[in-house]
Protein backbone atom coordinates (compact mmCIF):
# COMPACT_ATOMS: atom_id res chain seq x y z
CA UNK A 1 0.00 0.00 0.00
CA UNK A 2 1.58 3.24 -1.11
CA UNK A 3 -0.83 5.64 0.51
CA UNK A 4 -0.40 5.31 4.25
CA UNK A 5 -1.97 8.56 5.35
CA UNK A 6 -5.05 8.05 7.46
CA UNK A 7 -6.91 9.85 10.24
CA UNK A 8 -8.26 8.89 13.64
CA UNK A 9 -11.27 9.96 15.60
CA UNK A 10 -11.96 9.13 19.27
CA UNK A 11 -15.31 8.46 20.84
CA UNK A 12 -15.04 11.61 22.90
CA UNK A 13 -14.58 13.85 19.89
CA UNK A 14 -17.50 15.75 18.37
CA UNK A 15 -17.13 14.42 14.84
CA UNK A 16 -17.42 10.81 15.97
CA UNK A 17 -20.48 9.37 14.13
CA UNK A 18 -23.45 10.07 16.46
CA UNK A 19 -25.48 6.96 15.66
CA UNK A 20 -22.47 4.74 16.28
CA UNK A 21 -21.86 6.36 19.64
CA UNK A 22 -25.30 5.19 20.71
CA UNK A 23 -24.64 1.46 20.41
CA UNK A 24 -23.75 -0.77 23.31
CA UNK A 25 -20.06 -1.21 22.57
CA UNK A 26 -18.88 1.57 20.27
CA UNK A 27 -15.25 1.46 19.16
CA UNK A 28 -13.01 3.76 21.19
CA UNK A 29 -11.10 4.83 18.14
CA UNK A 30 -11.95 4.83 14.47
CA UNK A 31 -9.25 4.90 11.83
CA UNK A 32 -10.46 6.38 8.57
CA UNK A 33 -9.66 7.67 5.12
CA UNK A 34 -11.94 10.00 3.22
CA UNK A 35 -14.86 12.15 4.19
CA UNK A 36 -15.77 11.42 7.84
CA UNK A 37 -18.77 13.76 7.69
CA UNK A 38 -20.61 11.09 5.65
CA UNK A 39 -20.81 8.90 8.73
CA UNK A 40 -22.83 11.53 10.58
CA UNK A 41 -25.56 11.53 7.93
CA UNK A 42 -28.55 9.19 7.81
CA UNK A 43 -27.04 6.05 6.29
CA UNK A 44 -28.42 2.78 4.95
CA UNK A 45 -26.39 -0.39 5.01
CA UNK A 46 -26.60 -3.12 2.41
CA UNK A 47 -25.08 -6.48 3.27
CA UNK A 48 -25.16 -9.95 1.80
CA UNK A 49 -23.40 -13.05 0.72
CA UNK A 50 -19.98 -13.12 -0.93
CA UNK A 51 -21.36 -15.48 -3.53
CA UNK A 52 -24.93 -14.53 -4.20
CA UNK A 53 -26.79 -14.64 -7.48
CA UNK A 54 -27.34 -12.21 -10.32
CA UNK A 55 -30.62 -11.38 -8.61
CA UNK A 56 -28.88 -10.44 -5.36
CA UNK A 57 -26.35 -8.29 -7.14
CA UNK A 58 -29.15 -6.67 -9.07
CA UNK A 59 -30.92 -5.78 -5.82
CA UNK A 60 -27.68 -4.39 -4.38
CA UNK A 61 -27.10 -2.33 -7.50
CA UNK A 62 -30.64 -1.08 -7.46
CA UNK A 63 -30.32 0.04 -3.86
CA UNK A 64 -27.00 1.69 -4.72
CA UNK A 65 -28.62 3.68 -7.50
CA UNK A 66 -31.46 4.72 -5.17
CA UNK A 67 -29.27 5.77 -2.26
CA UNK A 68 -27.25 7.81 -4.75
CA UNK A 69 -30.41 9.46 -6.00
CA UNK A 70 -31.42 10.33 -2.44
CA UNK A 71 -27.83 11.27 -1.60
CA UNK A 72 -27.84 8.80 1.30
CA UNK A 73 -24.52 7.13 2.16
CA UNK A 74 -24.60 3.39 1.45
CA UNK A 75 -22.70 1.45 4.12
CA UNK A 76 -21.25 -2.00 3.51
CA UNK A 77 -18.26 -4.20 4.23
CA UNK A 78 -16.22 -4.14 0.99
CA UNK A 79 -16.53 -7.91 0.62
CA UNK A 80 -16.93 -9.60 -2.76
CA UNK A 81 -20.43 -10.17 -4.11
CA UNK A 82 -23.31 -8.15 -2.66
CA UNK A 83 -21.11 -5.69 -0.75
CA UNK A 84 -19.03 -4.82 -3.79
CA UNK A 85 -22.12 -4.52 -6.00
CA UNK A 86 -23.70 -2.04 -3.57
CA UNK A 87 -20.57 0.09 -3.20
CA UNK A 88 -19.89 0.06 -6.92
CA UNK A 89 -23.42 1.01 -7.86
CA UNK A 90 -23.43 3.94 -5.43
CA UNK A 91 -20.16 5.17 -6.96
CA UNK A 92 -21.40 4.59 -10.51
CA UNK A 93 -24.36 6.81 -9.74
CA UNK A 94 -22.19 9.49 -8.10
CA UNK A 95 -23.56 8.68 -4.66
CA UNK A 96 -21.81 8.57 -1.28
CA UNK A 97 -20.66 5.25 0.17
CA UNK A 98 -18.89 4.03 3.31
CA UNK A 99 -16.88 0.85 3.64
CA UNK A 100 -16.29 -0.61 7.09
CA UNK A 101 -13.31 -2.96 7.21
CA UNK A 102 -12.57 -5.98 9.33
CA UNK A 103 -8.85 -5.34 8.94
CA UNK A 104 -6.44 -2.46 9.46
CA UNK A 105 -7.01 0.53 7.22
CA UNK A 106 -3.94 -0.26 5.13
CA UNK A 107 -5.06 -3.76 4.20
CA UNK A 108 -7.45 -4.60 1.42
CA UNK A 109 -9.40 -7.79 1.82
CA UNK A 110 -10.20 -9.30 -0.61
CA UNK A 111 -7.30 -8.02 -2.68
CA UNK A 112 -9.45 -8.07 -5.80
CA UNK A 113 -11.40 -5.11 -4.42
CA UNK A 114 -8.32 -2.89 -4.28
CA UNK A 115 -9.47 -0.54 -7.01
CA UNK A 116 -12.88 -0.29 -5.39
CA UNK A 117 -11.26 0.54 -2.06
CA UNK A 118 -9.17 3.24 -3.69
CA UNK A 119 -12.22 4.76 -5.33
CA UNK A 120 -14.14 4.78 -2.04
CA UNK A 121 -11.20 6.47 -0.29
CA UNK A 122 -11.33 9.23 -2.87
CA UNK A 123 -15.06 9.69 -3.14
CA UNK A 124 -16.46 8.27 0.08
CA UNK A 125 -15.22 6.99 3.39
CA UNK A 126 -13.33 3.94 4.60
CA UNK A 127 -13.23 3.24 8.31
CA UNK A 128 -12.24 0.55 10.77
CA UNK A 129 -11.74 0.09 14.49
CA UNK A 130 -8.57 -1.93 13.93
CA UNK A 131 -5.13 -0.33 13.98
CA UNK A 132 -3.01 -0.23 10.83
CA UNK A 133 -1.39 -3.54 10.02
CA UNK A 134 -4.16 -5.54 11.69
CA UNK A 135 -4.96 -8.65 9.67
CA UNK A 136 -8.37 -10.26 9.55
CA UNK A 137 -9.17 -12.83 12.23
CA UNK A 138 -12.22 -15.10 12.40
CA UNK A 139 -13.66 -12.63 14.91
CA UNK A 140 -12.88 -9.33 13.26
CA UNK A 141 -15.48 -9.56 10.50
CA UNK A 142 -18.43 -10.43 12.76
CA UNK A 143 -17.33 -7.68 15.20
CA UNK A 144 -17.05 -5.25 12.32
CA UNK A 145 -20.69 -5.96 11.43
CA UNK A 146 -21.90 -4.14 14.55
CA UNK A 147 -20.28 -0.98 13.17
CA UNK A 148 -22.00 -1.41 9.81
CA UNK A 149 -25.42 -1.61 11.41
CA UNK A 150 -24.43 0.87 14.12
CA UNK A 151 -23.71 3.60 11.58
CA UNK A 152 -26.99 3.05 9.80
CA UNK A 153 -30.58 4.02 10.33
CA UNK A 154 -31.61 0.92 8.40
CA UNK A 155 -29.94 -2.31 7.31
CA UNK A 156 -30.99 -4.33 4.28
CA UNK A 157 -29.86 -7.96 4.07
CA UNK A 158 -29.92 -8.74 0.36
CA UNK A 159 -29.00 -12.40 0.13
CA UNK A 160 -27.80 -14.63 2.91
CA UNK A 161 -27.41 -18.34 3.24
CA UNK A 162 -28.56 -20.00 6.42
CA UNK A 163 -25.25 -19.42 8.22
CA UNK A 164 -24.19 -16.19 6.55
CA UNK A 165 -22.35 -13.43 8.41
CA UNK A 166 -24.98 -11.04 7.13
CA UNK A 167 -27.43 -12.59 9.57
CA UNK A 168 -25.10 -11.45 12.33
CA UNK A 169 -25.37 -7.93 10.97
CA UNK A 170 -29.15 -8.25 10.97
CA UNK A 171 -29.02 -9.38 14.61
CA UNK A 172 -26.89 -6.36 15.58
CA UNK A 173 -29.21 -4.04 13.72
CA UNK A 174 -32.22 -5.41 15.59
CA UNK A 175 -30.43 -5.24 18.95
CA UNK A 176 -29.40 -1.67 18.25
CA UNK A 177 -33.01 -0.79 17.61
CA UNK A 178 -32.48 0.04 13.96
CA UNK A 179 -34.80 -0.79 11.09
CA UNK A 180 -33.91 -4.12 9.56
CA UNK A 181 -35.05 -5.51 6.23
CA UNK A 182 -34.62 -8.82 4.46
CA UNK A 183 -34.92 -9.13 0.69
CA UNK A 184 -37.31 -11.98 -0.10
CA UNK A 185 -36.07 -14.63 -2.50
CA UNK A 186 -37.26 -17.84 -4.04
CA UNK A 187 -37.78 -20.44 -1.35
CA UNK A 188 -35.70 -22.95 -3.28
CA UNK A 189 -32.67 -20.70 -3.40
CA UNK A 190 -29.96 -21.47 -0.85
CA UNK A 191 -28.83 -17.87 -1.23
CA UNK A 192 -32.15 -16.64 0.11
CA UNK A 193 -32.67 -19.24 2.82
CA UNK A 194 -31.26 -16.90 5.47
CA UNK A 195 -33.12 -13.80 4.38
CA UNK A 196 -36.41 -15.63 4.01
CA UNK A 197 -35.88 -17.02 7.50
CA UNK A 198 -35.30 -13.47 8.79
CA UNK A 199 -38.60 -12.42 7.31
CA UNK A 200 -40.35 -15.42 8.81
CA UNK A 201 -38.86 -14.39 12.14
CA UNK A 202 -40.40 -10.95 11.88
CA UNK A 203 -37.91 -8.75 10.01
CA UNK A 204 -39.55 -6.42 7.48
CA UNK A 205 -39.49 -7.72 3.92
CA UNK A 206 -37.75 -5.32 1.55
CA UNK A 207 -40.25 -4.76 -1.24
CA UNK A 208 -39.20 -1.36 -2.52
CA UNK A 209 -36.69 1.27 -1.61
CA UNK A 210 -39.48 3.82 -1.36
CA UNK A 211 -40.99 1.87 1.56
CA UNK A 212 -37.74 2.30 3.44
CA UNK A 213 -37.85 6.00 2.73
CA UNK A 214 -41.40 6.12 4.09
CA UNK A 215 -40.33 4.20 7.20
CA UNK A 216 -37.48 6.61 7.81
CA UNK A 217 -39.69 9.61 7.13
CA UNK A 218 -37.66 10.72 4.12
CA UNK A 219 -39.79 12.25 1.35
CA UNK A 220 -39.93 10.19 -1.85
CA UNK A 221 -38.45 11.33 -5.12
CA UNK A 222 -40.82 10.73 -8.05
CA UNK A 223 -40.41 7.57 -10.18
CA UNK A 224 -42.50 8.75 -13.09
CA UNK A 225 -39.75 10.82 -14.62
CA UNK A 226 -37.96 7.66 -15.75
CA UNK A 227 -40.92 6.67 -17.89
CA UNK A 228 -41.08 10.15 -19.38
CA UNK A 229 -37.74 9.64 -21.08
CA UNK A 230 -38.98 6.52 -22.88
CA UNK A 231 -40.69 6.06 -26.24
CA UNK A 232 -43.73 3.89 -26.89
CA UNK A 233 -41.81 0.69 -27.67
CA UNK A 234 -39.43 1.24 -24.79
CA UNK A 235 -42.33 1.52 -22.38
CA UNK A 236 -43.57 -1.88 -23.60
CA UNK A 237 -40.20 -3.39 -22.76
CA UNK A 238 -40.03 -1.57 -19.44
CA UNK A 239 -43.48 -2.77 -18.42
CA UNK A 240 -42.76 -6.34 -19.43
CA UNK A 241 -39.69 -6.30 -17.19
CA UNK A 242 -41.51 -4.54 -14.39
CA UNK A 243 -44.11 -7.31 -14.42
CA UNK A 244 -41.89 -10.30 -15.05
CA UNK A 245 -38.60 -9.36 -13.41
CA UNK A 246 -35.31 -10.36 -15.01
CA UNK A 247 -35.66 -11.82 -18.51
CA UNK A 248 -33.63 -12.99 -21.46
CA UNK A 249 -34.03 -11.24 -24.80
CA UNK A 250 -35.97 -14.28 -26.03
CA UNK A 251 -38.44 -14.03 -23.20
CA UNK A 252 -38.88 -10.33 -23.92
CA UNK A 253 -39.68 -11.16 -27.54
CA UNK A 254 -42.34 -13.61 -26.51
CA UNK A 255 -43.78 -11.23 -23.98
CA UNK A 256 -43.89 -8.17 -26.21
CA UNK A 257 -44.41 -9.90 -29.55
CA UNK A 258 -41.56 -7.93 -31.06
CA UNK A 259 -38.86 -9.52 -33.25
CA UNK A 260 -35.45 -10.17 -31.76
CA UNK A 261 -33.54 -7.52 -33.77
CA UNK A 262 -35.88 -4.84 -32.51
CA UNK A 263 -35.81 -6.05 -28.92
CA UNK A 264 -32.02 -6.12 -28.94
CA UNK A 265 -31.85 -2.62 -30.37
CA UNK A 266 -34.35 -1.26 -27.84
CA UNK A 267 -32.51 -2.87 -24.95
CA UNK A 268 -29.27 -1.18 -26.01
CA UNK A 269 -30.89 2.22 -26.25
CA UNK A 270 -32.47 1.76 -22.83
CA UNK A 271 -29.15 0.60 -21.43
CA UNK A 272 -27.62 3.81 -22.71
CA UNK A 273 -30.36 5.77 -20.99
CA UNK A 274 -29.47 3.95 -17.81
CA UNK A 275 -32.93 2.40 -17.51
CA UNK A 276 -31.84 -1.21 -18.02
CA UNK A 277 -28.74 -3.21 -17.55
CA UNK A 278 -27.71 -6.63 -18.73
CA UNK A 279 -25.72 -9.32 -17.01
CA UNK A 280 -25.06 -12.94 -17.92
CA UNK A 281 -27.58 -12.81 -20.72
CA UNK A 282 -30.38 -11.46 -18.57
CA UNK A 283 -31.96 -8.03 -18.73
CA UNK A 284 -32.91 -6.06 -15.64
CA UNK A 285 -34.50 -2.74 -14.80
CA UNK A 286 -31.69 -0.56 -13.48
CA UNK A 287 -33.63 2.02 -11.50
Amino acid at each position, binding site marked *: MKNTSFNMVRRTETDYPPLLRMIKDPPETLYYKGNLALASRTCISVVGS*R*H*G*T*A*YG*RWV*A*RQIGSKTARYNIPLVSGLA*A*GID*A*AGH*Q*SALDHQGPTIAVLGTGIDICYPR*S*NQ*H*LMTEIEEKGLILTEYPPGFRATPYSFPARNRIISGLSAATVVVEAGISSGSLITAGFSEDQGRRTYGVPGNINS*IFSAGTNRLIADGVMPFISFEDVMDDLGIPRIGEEEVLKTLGQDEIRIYQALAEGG*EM*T*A*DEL*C*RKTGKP*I*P*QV*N*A*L*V*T*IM*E*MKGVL*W*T*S*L*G*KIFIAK
Partner: protein
Amino acid sequence: MEKGPDYREVIGQEGAKRAMVIAAAGFHNLLLTGVPGSGKSLLARCLPSILPPMDQEEIFQATKIHSVAGALTREEPIVRHRPFRMPHHTVSPTALTGGGRKMKPGELSLAHLGVLFLDEMPEFPREVLETLRQPLEDGVIRIHRLAGSVTYPCRFLLLGSSNPCRCGYHGSSDHHCTCTPAQIKSYQDRISGPLLDRMDLTIRISAVPLTEALGLDQGLHQRASRRETRMESEEMRNLVLRGRKKQKARFSGAGLTFNSQLDGELLERFCPMEKQARSLSLEASEGMGLSMRGYKKIVRVARTIADLEEEEIIRVSHVAEALQYRDQQERTGIR
Protein backbone atom coordinates in the same frame (compact mmCIF):
# COMPACT_ATOMS: atom_id res chain seq x y z
CA MET B 1 -27.85 -28.96 -50.30
CA GLU B 2 -28.76 -28.97 -46.61
CA LYS B 3 -26.32 -30.68 -44.36
CA GLY B 4 -26.87 -31.35 -40.73
CA PRO B 5 -29.95 -30.55 -38.66
CA ASP B 6 -32.37 -27.70 -39.39
CA TYR B 7 -32.91 -24.72 -37.14
CA ARG B 8 -36.58 -25.60 -36.89
CA GLU B 9 -35.43 -28.13 -34.31
CA VAL B 10 -34.17 -25.35 -32.08
CA ILE B 11 -36.95 -24.08 -29.89
CA GLY B 12 -37.06 -20.78 -28.14
CA GLN B 13 -33.57 -19.52 -28.98
CA GLU B 14 -34.52 -16.86 -31.49
CA GLY B 15 -31.86 -14.51 -30.16
CA ALA B 16 -29.13 -17.05 -30.75
CA LYS B 17 -30.48 -17.89 -34.19
CA ARG B 18 -30.40 -14.24 -35.11
CA ALA B 19 -26.74 -14.12 -34.09
CA MET B 20 -26.11 -17.20 -36.24
CA VAL B 21 -27.61 -15.44 -39.26
CA ILE B 22 -25.38 -12.43 -38.70
CA ALA B 23 -22.33 -14.63 -38.23
CA ALA B 24 -23.02 -16.63 -41.39
CA ALA B 25 -23.78 -13.55 -43.48
CA GLY B 26 -20.71 -11.52 -42.53
CA PHE B 27 -18.47 -14.48 -41.67
CA HIS B 28 -18.08 -13.19 -38.14
CA ASN B 29 -16.50 -15.31 -35.44
CA LEU B 30 -19.00 -16.16 -32.73
CA LEU B 31 -18.74 -17.31 -29.14
CA LEU B 32 -21.78 -18.97 -27.58
CA THR B 33 -21.82 -19.18 -23.82
CA GLY B 34 -24.54 -21.00 -21.96
CA VAL B 35 -25.38 -23.49 -19.27
CA PRO B 36 -25.33 -27.21 -20.10
CA GLY B 37 -28.47 -28.21 -21.93
CA SER B 38 -29.18 -24.77 -23.35
CA GLY B 39 -28.62 -26.09 -26.86
CA LYS B 40 -25.21 -24.68 -27.75
CA SER B 41 -24.10 -27.71 -29.72
CA LEU B 42 -27.36 -28.05 -31.60
CA LEU B 43 -27.28 -24.37 -32.53
CA ALA B 44 -23.76 -24.86 -33.81
CA ARG B 45 -24.42 -28.07 -35.70
CA CYS B 46 -27.32 -26.40 -37.53
CA LEU B 47 -25.03 -23.70 -38.90
CA PRO B 48 -24.15 -25.55 -42.15
CA SER B 49 -27.83 -25.47 -43.07
CA ILE B 50 -27.77 -21.70 -43.49
CA LEU B 51 -24.37 -21.18 -45.06
CA PRO B 52 -24.52 -19.89 -48.63
CA PRO B 53 -23.45 -22.26 -51.43
CA MET B 54 -19.84 -22.18 -52.60
CA ASP B 55 -18.98 -20.74 -55.98
CA GLN B 56 -16.72 -22.44 -58.53
CA GLU B 57 -13.57 -20.77 -57.31
CA GLU B 58 -14.29 -21.65 -53.69
CA ILE B 59 -15.04 -25.27 -54.53
CA PHE B 60 -11.75 -25.41 -56.38
CA GLN B 61 -9.77 -23.97 -53.47
CA ALA B 62 -11.34 -26.15 -50.81
CA THR B 63 -10.97 -29.26 -52.93
CA LYS B 64 -7.28 -28.55 -53.46
CA ILE B 65 -6.65 -28.31 -49.75
CA HIS B 66 -8.61 -31.46 -48.98
CA SER B 67 -6.77 -33.23 -51.75
CA VAL B 68 -3.34 -32.28 -50.42
CA ALA B 69 -4.45 -33.38 -46.97
CA GLY B 70 -5.72 -36.66 -48.33
CA ALA B 71 -9.13 -35.87 -46.89
CA LEU B 72 -11.21 -36.45 -50.02
CA THR B 73 -13.41 -39.50 -50.03
CA ARG B 74 -14.88 -41.67 -52.74
CA GLU B 75 -18.34 -40.42 -51.76
CA GLU B 76 -17.27 -36.81 -51.88
CA PRO B 77 -14.40 -36.45 -54.32
CA ILE B 78 -15.07 -32.72 -54.62
CA VAL B 79 -15.77 -30.36 -51.74
CA ARG B 80 -19.13 -28.90 -52.72
CA HIS B 81 -20.39 -27.94 -49.31
CA ARG B 82 -18.76 -25.51 -46.98
CA PRO B 83 -16.54 -27.46 -44.63
CA PHE B 84 -17.64 -27.77 -41.02
CA ARG B 85 -14.73 -28.96 -38.92
CA MET B 86 -15.16 -29.91 -35.33
CA PRO B 87 -11.86 -31.00 -33.80
CA HIS B 88 -12.03 -32.49 -30.34
CA HIS B 89 -10.30 -30.63 -27.52
CA THR B 90 -7.63 -33.31 -27.34
CA VAL B 91 -6.42 -32.27 -30.82
CA SER B 92 -2.68 -31.71 -31.05
CA PRO B 93 -1.36 -28.32 -32.14
CA THR B 94 0.08 -29.95 -35.26
CA ALA B 95 -3.20 -31.54 -36.25
CA LEU B 96 -4.79 -28.13 -35.90
CA THR B 97 -2.26 -26.01 -37.75
CA GLY B 98 -0.92 -28.58 -40.15
CA GLY B 99 2.69 -29.53 -40.71
CA GLY B 100 4.04 -32.74 -39.33
CA ARG B 101 6.65 -34.88 -40.98
CA LYS B 102 4.82 -35.09 -44.26
CA MET B 103 3.67 -31.49 -44.20
CA LYS B 104 -0.09 -31.69 -44.46
CA PRO B 105 -2.73 -29.01 -43.99
CA GLY B 106 -4.39 -29.16 -40.57
CA GLU B 107 -7.89 -28.58 -39.29
CA LEU B 108 -7.62 -24.81 -39.69
CA SER B 109 -6.98 -25.17 -43.40
CA LEU B 110 -9.53 -27.92 -43.86
CA ALA B 111 -12.03 -25.44 -42.46
CA HIS B 112 -11.01 -22.88 -45.11
CA LEU B 113 -14.12 -21.10 -46.47
CA GLY B 114 -16.20 -22.94 -43.92
CA VAL B 115 -16.60 -23.25 -40.21
CA LEU B 116 -14.23 -24.29 -37.46
CA PHE B 117 -16.33 -25.28 -34.50
CA LEU B 118 -14.56 -25.58 -31.15
CA ASP B 119 -17.03 -27.12 -28.76
CA GLU B 120 -16.28 -26.39 -25.09
CA MET B 121 -13.56 -23.97 -26.09
CA PRO B 122 -12.06 -23.51 -22.59
CA GLU B 123 -11.28 -27.23 -22.54
CA PHE B 124 -8.71 -26.80 -25.32
CA PRO B 125 -5.18 -26.37 -24.00
CA ARG B 126 -4.00 -22.80 -23.97
CA GLU B 127 -1.16 -23.49 -26.42
CA VAL B 128 -3.67 -24.88 -28.90
CA LEU B 129 -5.99 -21.90 -28.62
CA GLU B 130 -3.14 -19.45 -28.97
CA THR B 131 -2.10 -20.97 -32.30
CA LEU B 132 -5.40 -19.64 -33.66
CA ARG B 133 -4.52 -16.00 -33.23
CA GLN B 134 -2.28 -15.37 -36.18
CA PRO B 135 -4.30 -17.43 -38.68
CA LEU B 136 -7.45 -15.64 -37.56
CA GLU B 137 -5.78 -12.35 -38.30
CA ASP B 138 -4.15 -13.22 -41.61
CA GLY B 139 -6.39 -15.89 -43.12
CA VAL B 140 -3.32 -17.99 -43.86
CA ILE B 141 -1.01 -20.14 -41.84
CA ARG B 142 2.69 -20.35 -42.40
CA ILE B 143 4.55 -23.44 -41.38
CA HIS B 144 8.31 -23.58 -41.21
CA ARG B 145 10.08 -26.93 -41.10
CA LEU B 146 13.50 -28.23 -41.95
CA ALA B 147 12.12 -29.42 -45.25
CA GLY B 148 11.02 -25.88 -46.09
CA SER B 149 8.12 -23.50 -45.57
CA VAL B 150 4.58 -23.65 -46.77
CA THR B 151 1.63 -21.33 -46.55
CA TYR B 152 -1.84 -22.80 -46.39
CA PRO B 153 -4.96 -20.67 -46.65
CA CYS B 154 -7.33 -20.80 -43.72
CA ARG B 155 -10.07 -18.21 -43.80
CA PHE B 156 -12.73 -19.78 -41.65
CA LEU B 157 -15.56 -18.75 -39.39
CA LEU B 158 -14.56 -19.58 -35.84
CA LEU B 159 -17.51 -20.76 -33.83
CA GLY B 160 -16.81 -21.42 -30.18
CA SER B 161 -19.01 -22.67 -27.41
CA SER B 162 -18.36 -22.45 -23.71
CA ASN B 163 -19.90 -23.11 -20.37
CA PRO B 164 -20.00 -20.03 -18.15
CA CYS B 165 -17.83 -21.76 -15.53
CA ARG B 166 -16.32 -25.11 -14.60
CA CYS B 167 -19.50 -26.56 -13.08
CA GLY B 168 -21.53 -24.94 -15.82
CA TYR B 169 -24.21 -23.19 -13.85
CA HIS B 170 -22.87 -19.71 -13.15
CA GLY B 171 -25.71 -17.29 -13.88
CA SER B 172 -28.34 -20.00 -14.06
CA SER B 173 -31.54 -19.23 -12.21
CA ASP B 174 -32.44 -22.79 -11.32
CA HIS B 175 -29.14 -24.51 -10.58
CA HIS B 176 -26.54 -23.63 -8.04
CA CYS B 177 -23.07 -22.86 -9.22
CA THR B 178 -20.54 -24.55 -6.98
CA CYS B 179 -17.55 -22.59 -8.25
CA THR B 180 -15.74 -19.93 -6.26
CA PRO B 181 -15.41 -16.48 -7.84
CA ALA B 182 -11.73 -17.19 -8.47
CA GLN B 183 -12.55 -20.46 -10.22
CA ILE B 184 -15.11 -18.75 -12.42
CA LYS B 185 -12.61 -16.13 -13.42
CA SER B 186 -9.89 -18.63 -14.15
CA TYR B 187 -12.27 -20.67 -16.29
CA GLN B 188 -13.34 -17.64 -18.28
CA ASP B 189 -9.73 -16.50 -18.62
CA ARG B 190 -8.87 -19.68 -20.52
CA ILE B 191 -10.10 -17.89 -23.61
CA SER B 192 -7.52 -15.14 -23.63
CA GLY B 193 -8.29 -11.48 -24.21
CA PRO B 194 -6.60 -11.34 -27.61
CA LEU B 195 -8.60 -14.36 -28.76
CA LEU B 196 -11.84 -12.90 -27.40
CA ASP B 197 -10.99 -9.72 -29.29
CA ARG B 198 -11.28 -11.71 -32.50
CA MET B 199 -14.79 -12.89 -31.73
CA ASP B 200 -17.07 -10.30 -33.35
CA LEU B 201 -20.17 -11.75 -31.74
CA THR B 202 -20.48 -12.95 -28.17
CA ILE B 203 -23.79 -14.21 -26.91
CA ARG B 204 -25.14 -15.70 -23.75
CA ILE B 205 -27.92 -18.25 -23.95
CA SER B 206 -30.13 -19.68 -21.23
CA ALA B 207 -31.87 -23.01 -21.10
CA VAL B 208 -35.46 -22.87 -22.26
CA PRO B 209 -37.78 -24.32 -19.61
CA LEU B 210 -39.42 -27.52 -20.76
CA THR B 211 -42.95 -26.25 -20.26
CA GLU B 212 -42.15 -23.33 -22.47
CA ALA B 213 -40.34 -25.40 -25.06
CA LEU B 214 -43.35 -27.63 -25.42
CA GLY B 215 -45.74 -24.71 -25.20
CA LEU B 216 -47.49 -26.37 -22.27
CA ASP B 217 -48.01 -23.04 -20.59
CA GLN B 218 -49.99 -21.76 -23.50
CA GLY B 219 -53.24 -22.45 -25.30
CA LEU B 220 -53.44 -24.27 -28.61
CA HIS B 221 -53.94 -21.10 -30.55
CA GLN B 222 -50.86 -19.44 -29.09
CA ARG B 223 -48.82 -22.54 -29.69
CA ALA B 224 -49.75 -22.45 -33.35
CA SER B 225 -48.76 -18.82 -33.68
CA ARG B 226 -45.51 -19.50 -31.85
CA ARG B 227 -44.61 -22.10 -34.42
CA GLU B 228 -45.02 -19.45 -37.09
CA THR B 229 -42.62 -17.05 -35.42
CA ARG B 230 -39.99 -19.74 -35.01
CA MET B 231 -37.23 -19.19 -37.57
CA GLU B 232 -36.33 -22.15 -39.76
CA SER B 233 -33.18 -22.69 -41.74
CA GLU B 234 -34.70 -21.79 -45.08
CA GLU B 235 -35.81 -18.37 -43.94
CA MET B 236 -32.48 -17.82 -42.23
CA ARG B 237 -30.53 -18.91 -45.28
CA ASN B 238 -32.43 -16.46 -47.45
CA LEU B 239 -31.43 -13.67 -45.11
CA VAL B 240 -27.83 -14.81 -45.23
CA LEU B 241 -27.87 -14.88 -49.02
CA ARG B 242 -29.26 -11.39 -49.11
CA GLY B 243 -26.46 -10.18 -46.84
CA ARG B 244 -23.84 -11.96 -48.94
CA LYS B 245 -25.13 -10.40 -52.14
CA LYS B 246 -24.77 -6.95 -50.65
CA GLN B 247 -21.20 -7.66 -49.64
CA LYS B 248 -20.28 -9.09 -53.02
CA ALA B 249 -21.50 -5.99 -54.77
CA ARG B 250 -19.74 -3.70 -52.34
CA PHE B 251 -16.40 -5.44 -52.25
CA SER B 252 -15.96 -6.27 -55.94
CA GLY B 253 -12.46 -5.18 -56.80
CA ALA B 254 -11.58 -4.26 -53.22
CA GLY B 255 -9.93 -7.58 -52.45
CA LEU B 256 -12.35 -8.41 -49.67
CA THR B 257 -15.12 -10.95 -49.37
CA PHE B 258 -16.66 -10.52 -45.95
CA ASN B 259 -17.54 -7.72 -43.57
CA SER B 260 -15.54 -9.49 -40.89
CA GLN B 261 -12.39 -8.58 -42.83
CA LEU B 262 -13.04 -4.86 -42.58
CA ASP B 263 -10.42 -2.95 -40.68
CA GLY B 264 -8.61 0.37 -40.67
CA GLU B 265 -9.23 2.62 -43.61
CA LEU B 266 -11.58 0.12 -45.29
CA LEU B 267 -13.77 0.04 -42.21
CA GLU B 268 -14.19 3.78 -42.51
CA ARG B 269 -14.82 3.69 -46.23
CA PHE B 270 -17.35 0.89 -46.32
CA CYS B 271 -19.28 1.70 -43.16
CA PRO B 272 -21.02 5.02 -43.67
CA MET B 273 -23.31 5.74 -40.76
CA GLU B 274 -26.16 8.11 -40.24
CA LYS B 275 -25.39 10.79 -37.69
CA GLN B 276 -27.31 9.26 -34.81
CA ALA B 277 -25.73 5.87 -35.43
CA ARG B 278 -22.29 7.43 -35.26
CA SER B 279 -23.03 9.20 -32.02
CA LEU B 280 -24.61 6.10 -30.47
CA SER B 281 -21.56 4.03 -31.32
CA LEU B 282 -19.26 6.61 -29.77
CA GLU B 283 -21.40 7.13 -26.69
CA ALA B 284 -21.65 3.39 -26.19
CA SER B 285 -17.91 2.95 -26.50
CA GLU B 286 -17.57 5.47 -23.75
CA GLY B 287 -20.43 4.32 -21.55
CA MET B 288 -19.88 0.58 -21.94
CA GLY B 289 -16.13 0.87 -21.77
CA LEU B 290 -15.39 -0.58 -25.20
CA SER B 291 -11.82 -0.71 -26.45
CA MET B 292 -10.88 0.39 -29.97
CA ARG B 293 -11.13 -3.26 -30.99
CA GLY B 294 -14.52 -3.50 -29.34
CA TYR B 295 -15.68 -0.44 -31.21
CA LYS B 296 -14.57 -1.87 -34.56
CA LYS B 297 -16.38 -5.10 -33.86
CA ILE B 298 -19.60 -3.18 -33.29
CA VAL B 299 -19.19 -1.31 -36.57
CA ARG B 300 -18.45 -4.51 -38.53
CA VAL B 301 -21.44 -6.30 -37.07
CA ALA B 302 -23.68 -3.27 -37.64
CA ARG B 303 -22.49 -3.31 -41.27
CA THR B 304 -23.71 -6.89 -41.64
CA ILE B 305 -27.02 -6.16 -39.92
CA ALA B 306 -27.57 -3.26 -42.32
CA ASP B 307 -26.75 -5.59 -45.23
CA LEU B 308 -29.40 -8.05 -44.05
CA GLU B 309 -31.89 -5.21 -44.44
CA GLU B 310 -30.30 -4.15 -47.72
CA GLU B 311 -29.41 -0.74 -46.37
CA GLU B 312 -26.30 1.04 -47.59
CA ILE B 313 -26.13 3.50 -44.68
CA ILE B 314 -25.80 2.01 -41.20
CA ARG B 315 -28.70 3.18 -39.08
CA VAL B 316 -28.99 3.70 -35.37
CA SER B 317 -31.10 0.56 -34.96
CA HIS B 318 -28.32 -1.50 -36.57
CA VAL B 319 -25.70 -0.19 -34.17
CA ALA B 320 -28.05 -0.65 -31.22
CA GLU B 321 -28.66 -4.29 -32.14
CA ALA B 322 -24.96 -4.90 -32.74
CA LEU B 323 -24.21 -3.66 -29.23
CA GLN B 324 -26.20 -6.53 -27.74
CA TYR B 325 -23.70 -8.95 -29.24
CA ARG B 326 -20.71 -7.31 -27.60
CA ASP B 327 -18.65 -9.11 -25.02
CA GLN B 328 -20.71 -8.41 -21.94
CA GLN B 329 -18.50 -8.65 -18.96
CA GLU B 330 -20.37 -9.23 -15.81
CA ARG B 331 -20.63 -5.80 -14.32
CA THR B 332 -20.90 -6.53 -10.66
CA GLY B 333 -19.86 -9.02 -8.10
CA ILE B 334 -16.68 -10.77 -9.01
CA ARG B 335 -13.97 -8.20 -8.97
